[in-house]
């Protein structure tokens, strides 16, 4: 249960959006729980923005239903939905000063000017910009403009708050800080939020749940943990975090478990609905152990490249199952390039995935 009475769930029910012949979103269903932040993640052109705009009412679904709270809003225009959006370009009104920008939504919804101003001041204080009200947007830095845009959306206390790549115009350091600010604000106010990004690290960092999209469809939905630990298919495994994708063979199915043969080693993993035969295995780089002792069991390999990065070392290892990309936090005991190694797998970070 959330303490924010206005926050509402968002539900997509078999929603399709076509622009002429281009299908931007195809038969998509998901639910965003009230008070949670859900991220839409995916490569360019997969339909994230279009999905977000359908929640806002800026695009109308070609078929299917969109619900906010209990209400079916499929045919409701943006104006009549209680949804605010933070745009990638911020979309601050250049002819109004900061306070007028922030109070705009309040004023047009009929709240007295003085009340609206007071609320807007509060909103500005929330994003750490108290006292900037008199400035024009052109007199603010990029990060400040971004926060004004957030404040403008927040003060309306909408049922749902939408972000379309809100950080893409900021530098990396600032991006990290602002995304933490946004997350903190969202959690404090328990706002239902939908957040679009194509940066998987950002998605993992801010979300309660992540929806990974591919080619207008949902590839997988789950918590950041789920997605990283248990990607369903090759695409998700590759897109969320780094993964070594190798071919293996399932030799035996036994209850929930599958016995998997990878080169010269064998291990037991959840079969996840796959049957015996050739299969795809996703191995996180940090789940591969390299040993220099030639007598241990493992896949024999040869270190082709070793890159020292301070906090860890990155290796590229030639093996019979293909090139493996490996990270190892034990930077002080780096293995030099050219060494022969035995490759073994850790308990976690190794999963069978659908092709």
């Amino acid at each position: 249960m959330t303490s924010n009475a206005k926050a509402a769930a968002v539900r997509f029910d078999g929603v399709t959006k076509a622009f002429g012949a281009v299908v931007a979103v195809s038969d998509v269903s998901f639910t965003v729980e009230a008070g949670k932040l859900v991220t839409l993640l995916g490569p360019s052109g997969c339909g994230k923005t279009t999905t977000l705009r359908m929640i806002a009412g800026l695009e109308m679904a070609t078929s299917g239903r969109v619900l906010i709270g209990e209400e079916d809003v499929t045919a409701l225009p943006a104006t009549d939905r209680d949804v605010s959006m933070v745009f990638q370009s911020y979309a601050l009104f250049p002819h109004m000063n900061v306070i007028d920008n922030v109070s705009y939504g309040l004023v047009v919804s009929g709240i007295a000017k003085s009340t609206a101003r007071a609320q807007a001041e509060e909103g500005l204080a929330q994003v750490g910009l108290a006292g900037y009200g008199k400035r024009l947007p052109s007199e603010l830095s990029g990060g400040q403009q971004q926060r004004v845009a957030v404040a403008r959306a927040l003060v309306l206390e909408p049922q749902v708050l939408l972000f379309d790549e809100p950080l893409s115009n900021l530098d990396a350091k600032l991006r990290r800080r602002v995304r933490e600010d946004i997350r903190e604000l969202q959690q404090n106010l328990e706002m239902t939020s939908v957040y679009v990004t194509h940066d998987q690290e950002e998605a993992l960092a801010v979300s309660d749940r992540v929806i990974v999209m591919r080619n207008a469809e949902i590839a997988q939905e789950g918590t950041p943990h789920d997605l990283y630990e248990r990607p369903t298919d090759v695409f998700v495994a590759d897109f969320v975090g780094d993964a070594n994708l190798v071919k293996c063979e399932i030799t035996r199915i036994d209850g929930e478990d599958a016995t998997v043969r990878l080169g010269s080693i064998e291990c037991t993993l959840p079969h996840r609905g796959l049957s015996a035969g050739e299969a795809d295995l996703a191995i996180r780089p940090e789940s591969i152990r390299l040993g220099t002792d030639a007598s241990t069991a493992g896949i024999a390999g040869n270190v082709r490249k070793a890159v020292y990065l301070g906090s860890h070392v990155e290796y590229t290892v030639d093996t019979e199952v293909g090139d493996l990309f490996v990270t190892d936090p034990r930077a002080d005991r780096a293995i030099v390039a050219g060494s022969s190694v035995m490759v073994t797998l850790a308990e976690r970070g190794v999963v069978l995935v659908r092709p």
Partner: protein
Amino acid sequence: MNRNLVWWMAVGLGGYLLLPWYVADDGFWSFTWLIGGAPVTADYASGLFKGLLHGRPWLLPVGVLLIAPGLVIGRPKADPVFGAALITIGALGLIYIVGQGFTIGISGWEFPGLEQLFGPTELRQEGMGYGALLASAAFLFMFTLGFAARGAIKGDVFVVGSIGLIVALVAAFVFFPVIRILISAVQDNDGSYAFHLFFPKLFDGKIWGVACVTSGLRCGVAWNSLFLAILTGASSTLLGLAFALIATRTDFRAKRLLRVLTLLPIITPPFVIGLAVILLFGRSGLVSQWLWEFFGVPPSRWIFGLPGIWFAQTLAFAPIAFLVLIGVVEGVSPAMEEASQTLRASSWRTFSTISLPLMRPGLANAFLLGFIESLADFGNPLVLGGNYDVLSTEIFFAIVGAQNDQGRAAVLAIVLLAFTLSAFVAQRLWLGRKSYVTVTGKADSGMPVKIPARVKAAVYGTALPWAGLTVVIYIIILFGGFVELLGRNNTFTFRHYIDTFGITQGEFGLVFSGLAWNSFRTTVSIAAISAPLTAIVGLLTAYILVRQRFVGRQAFEFGTMLSFAIPGTVIGVSYILAFNVPPIEITGTGVILVISFVFRNMPVGVRAGIASMSQLDNSLDEASLTLGANSFTTVRKVILPLLRPAILAALVFSFVRAMTAISAVIFLVSANYDMATSFIIGRVENGDFGQAIAYSSVLILVMILAIGLLQLLVGERQIRRRTDVVAPVPTASTGLAA
């Protein structure tokens, strides 16, 4: 209950039950019906009482249709039945009103077939009045409400309603008259159809002849018009750009003066520039005399013909290009120019590869405007044409001349239309589909960059001599009003001003005894009414075109631009043909003048709006919408304030055009509603050059005051505080060379 529906039902029924259905004989603006017994007595009866008491029973179904939406009034908007019912009722109502308007005319059935079918009738029609107007509006908006309820344009009532309104207005006041005159292309003068005459008229050697290429003979008028229009379009765009650059990107000191100078020709009735050009360069013109005296160049009539028209048109239309381009030049984001310079582009490269291409939509628009204006111009070819015939004057003479051949006029109009439409298509292709958004919601804080030295030299080189020439011409115009007869008798006199604008002390107080007062009052009030209407219709159309996607958008754009492609002479004649009989009977009124100005000048508002609006990032509107503002509020609070340059351009242009237009006006004026320009032409024909020039000077003065007032009212668009110009940052290459 749907508030919008209740409102339109109330409006429709109110009009139907209470207001006079037809225009009374005392005119549209007369309000005697208020005390004259409306809505019952025969003269002022409302639709209902006309139907019940005064022999027009066919008006009764209108009432039934107006009540019909009551059946669905309780249903929610999302209910498909609600939308479908409104669409049906609205469409039926409109079709019925239009249908009855055209089948029953002043003298009974309009079509012979109907007479055979129903027998002769005693039924009579009059021009539509307030009642019919409100009922039609109610049906129209019920229709659009229905579409919005069915989810058209994302369910936006305001946008769907606006589209409906504009379509209806353009249909009534552009398409209907055009169709009317096109029908005359295949009719003979008696009104019977004569298709065999069409093609000989179309391929006439007088239109398409190319004799001027091979021999000394004259070319066809079509070639003449085309050649002139290309010259004028190019020269006025270049000049406009030069002035716009000086005004925004240099530290030229007399900028304000320059701005006034560039505005002067636009606020001058076109034939006045023509007159001044003759007074300077004609056989006995001042310059010609001077050349003869000092250089022995014999005076000749060289100015009459292509050089003179081109010269006068460039003077007249460069300011329009300037008004369009200044908004565009201001809109080019300094950040992009700065970005280019930091990419080590020299200031010349920056200008030619960044600034200029970013101005492309503006340049194309300016050229298109100049091109079409030139084709449609009537005043200058009339005064300066000599033997160089162009389409617009040919059309005029085909109708008023000894030939009186409406068919030939219509054929010439079709040729003209083909030219302007080709220009339109070419512009589309050239602009392509690149995005020219430069004012984004992400504010940039750069400052306009100065133009490079080369460009500056070129810009000064063209603009300043031209400005000088303009000054000379205006000195002539001012001086001419204060002498007996310029060139012949240069004695100083106030006579012309007293004759035109005299005020004498009469028996009962002041008497406006000057000849010009009557037409002057009409002109000012008609211009003041039509300017804001034009701006509203034009910018609303631009908003719909730039921001909304809907089926038939291309057709919509074509329709709204069409009136611009029709020369005033043709508009004038077609309005006379279309609107001197019911159902819309407005010839001889002020209304027809206002309407002709609004729909003739609307395309300029549309163009200016489109050029500025396509530089505004769409996410600004969307932000406003998601913040809960409806599209009407969004237009009012976000778009309009950012469109101030376009608003000003539209207001100024339409006001000025209403004061200076001649070609359509000359057909539409009446004894009660005489306009300044037709009065002045009358003076010119009488040989009263002094009075004509005096009156023109007064008009110019009034327009200057009006423009100043408008500029004050509209204000400047404030999106960044630092407006001062900075010198270009030295780039690496120039830095090294130095």
